């Protein structure tokens, strides 16, 4: 017992002499108790700062209150792409932890929604589906819709959910909502496998239009990102967003041509229907995949313009608000 205590005492006061441990208090030791009384022989090796990089090579950061319009900081965002990847990867890895069904959930959700839609809208209400088997018709719309709904919900909550990070570390804040959008893609890819199976089952062959599919996927994510930027920045300050979000997503589902076709909307109103960006996105997606319905025209372009406006506006709004995130979130 006494031996241990002595050892601890020595370790505490003179780690310098312990080969395993880095100098513990070299500065204090130079004139300290033990070194003077017992180890006067040991010449203290004062460490001289050995700069590893030349001053000229050191990045310079200037911190001052920002004024007026700020840049989007896309270059910095690019520098932090690895963090973006890691945050998305974290969300994906954590999502289905401790669930029995795991990633099957990514298919189960749209599948069951499709079954319910088929029963009530397809069979009972006999909603026209542009000559496409109703299950396939609704599932092709549910794919981008689920991606959108998930990405929107996650990105809107992302700033609040990552509060600990935001109040403790600096990184471009855009990384946070962007990572949750990217994470949504995984579910999309899994659920996509089912649509391929369904197309084979119903004997639907994709046309050349399928090459435009990536564009519609990107447009879906851009829509979710644009709206998510506004909502996440608002959510940081007003938690009301969290409660209205489920409501918004629900209403939006029925305002979009998921369970029905946009041909139900009179032709002359269709461009206005495109003001709901998801209308253009979903019809475009359906057309790209199945090639059966009409190629979306004006409606799609209206949607694209709306998405662009929402996205750019959202980016600037988010950048303006992000400087107060750490204080208000």
């Amino acid at each position, binding site marked *: 017992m006494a031996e241990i205590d002595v050892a601890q005492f020595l370790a505490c006061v003179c*780690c310098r002499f312990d080969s395993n441990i880095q100098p513990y*208090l070299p500065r*204090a030791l130079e004139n*300290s108790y033990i070194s003077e009384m017992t180890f006067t022989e040991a010449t203290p090796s004062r460490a001289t700062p050995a700069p590893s990089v030349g*001053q000229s090579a050191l990045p310079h950061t200037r911190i001052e209150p920002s004024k007026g319009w700020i840049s989007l900081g896309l270059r910095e965002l690019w520098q932090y792409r690895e963090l973006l990847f890691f945050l998305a990867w974290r969300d994906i890895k954590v999502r289905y932890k401790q669930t029995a069904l795991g990633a099957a959930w990514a298919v189960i959700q749209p599948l069951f929604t499709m079954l319910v839609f088929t029963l009530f809208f397809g069979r009972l209400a006999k909603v026209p589906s542009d000559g496409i088997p109703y299950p396939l018709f609704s599932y092709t719309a549910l794919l981008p819709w689920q991606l959108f709904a998930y990405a929107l919900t996650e990105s809107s909550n992302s700033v609040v959910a990552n509060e*600990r990070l935001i109040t403790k*570390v600096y990184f471009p804040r855009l990384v946070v909502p962007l990572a949750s959008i990217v994470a949504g893609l995984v579910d999309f890819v899994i659920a996509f496998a089912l649509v391929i199976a369904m197309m084979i089952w119903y004997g639907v062959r994709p046309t050349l239009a399928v090459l435009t599919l990536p564009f519609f996927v990107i447009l879906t994510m851009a829509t979710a990102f644009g709206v998510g930027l506004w909502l996440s920045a608002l959510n940081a300050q007003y938690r*009301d967003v969290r409660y209205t979000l489920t409501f918004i997503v629900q209403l939006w589902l029925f305002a979009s041509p998921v369970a029905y076709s946009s041909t139900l909307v009179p032709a002359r109103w269709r461009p206005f229907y495109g003001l709901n960006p998801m209308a253009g996105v979903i019809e475009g997606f359906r057309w790209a995949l199945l090639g059966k319905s009409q190629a979306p025209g004006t409606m799609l372009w209206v949607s694209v313009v709306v998405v662009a406006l929402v996205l750019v506006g959202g980016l600037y709004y988010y950048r303006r608000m992000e400087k107060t995130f750490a204080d208000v979130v």
Partner: protein
Amino acid sequence: MTDIAIRCEGIAKQYRIGERERYRALRDVITDMVTAPFRRVRSASQDSSHVNGNNKETRFWALKDVSFEIKRGEVAGIIGRNGVGKSTLLKILSRITEPTRGSADLWGRVGSLLEVGTGFHPELTGRDNIFLNGAILGMRKTEIARKFDEIVAFAEVEKFIDTPVKRYSSGMYMRLAFAVAAHLELEILLVDEVLAVGDASFQKKCLNKMQSLSEHGRTVLLVSHNMSSVTRLCERTILLDDGSVACDGRSQEVVSVYLQSGVGASAQRQWDNIEKAPGNDVVRLRAVRVRTETGEVTDTIDIRRPIGIEMEFDVLKPGCLLVPNLHFVNEEGVYLFAASDHDPKWHRRPRPRGRFVSTAWIPGNFLSEGTLTVGAAVSTMDPVVVHFFERDAIAFHVVDSLDGDSARGDYAGPFPGVVRPLLKWTTEYGLGIAASPLAGVEDGNR
């Protein structure tokens, strides 16, 4: 100019009161929007007369005007009372929040360590969390991969590296989290209180690591409450007070200035209004004082002299068994000891109504140098009822005048230990091995 790592010029930060605690509901904004036009008219008329009472109440300056420069390779400490803006300053320097006024320049990649384990996810394994946390702290994936083994070895979690961290003990969790941060290859490191966590041996390891960082030319800015780690690690310390730099210089000097300023407590506390005094309807505390043996009230006591802690209290309800007790804590927050009244005159005797003055005497040559805060309480022991417990009731400093007759003898440097008794030493000479060769070597050394 070239050897400066951090330069702050007139940094100020204003917060709206309540901004940090409460979020605004959309409802408030809508009401704001509705009333805004009217308010603008009103504030325009107010501005002309420079009456802005409304603004004054809801805003406060966490930092008013902070300027300093830190050289490259310097390890500097920041100390100050709670809420003085130390953490805010660090948050500004790490770009988490913006200053309201002023500017700062930093030369070099900046890493901030405001919390151990930022971004750790409980569901992920130790391995995953190393990569995630490293990326959050600004490391490249290749860099993390290269240091992976080193990090795991430092954290001593080799066996559990593929276990989710939610199954880790808190010690393992802390070790892993610090290990990642400690392996950051950045030029400037901003550290907030992270040394206050973990067990003693881990703290020591952290201190070692920080020390070696500075020896490799890293600049470290350390916010701490632990005066001993500040003086140990930092050559230089900046004392913040009232939102600006109160003192800046050699750590020992700045720390002693800070301690002299009294850590918010003094050698004497009195409660003149019995209604507001700590206590209940049985007993109320009226005063606590530090006295020397000659009866003076003082906050500075010679290490060789006895110290009297005097407690004055009014018993309002007669017939209770009351035991005054005192609690001693040093400046590092270490609970030194408790003392409970043993005066045989009142031991197990119900006390009548009236004023009592109880004094506990701490012998000279017992405490070590430093600042002690004293908590005062009166309790009933069976059943246990604490009638009041005033933490940090008073504080006093124990000083050694270095005359050579205290326990430190003729040695004037840092002296470890929370107590410093002057022990009785005995020496025997000339027994048995007087002729051994070892004795000769020792003589030669002298």
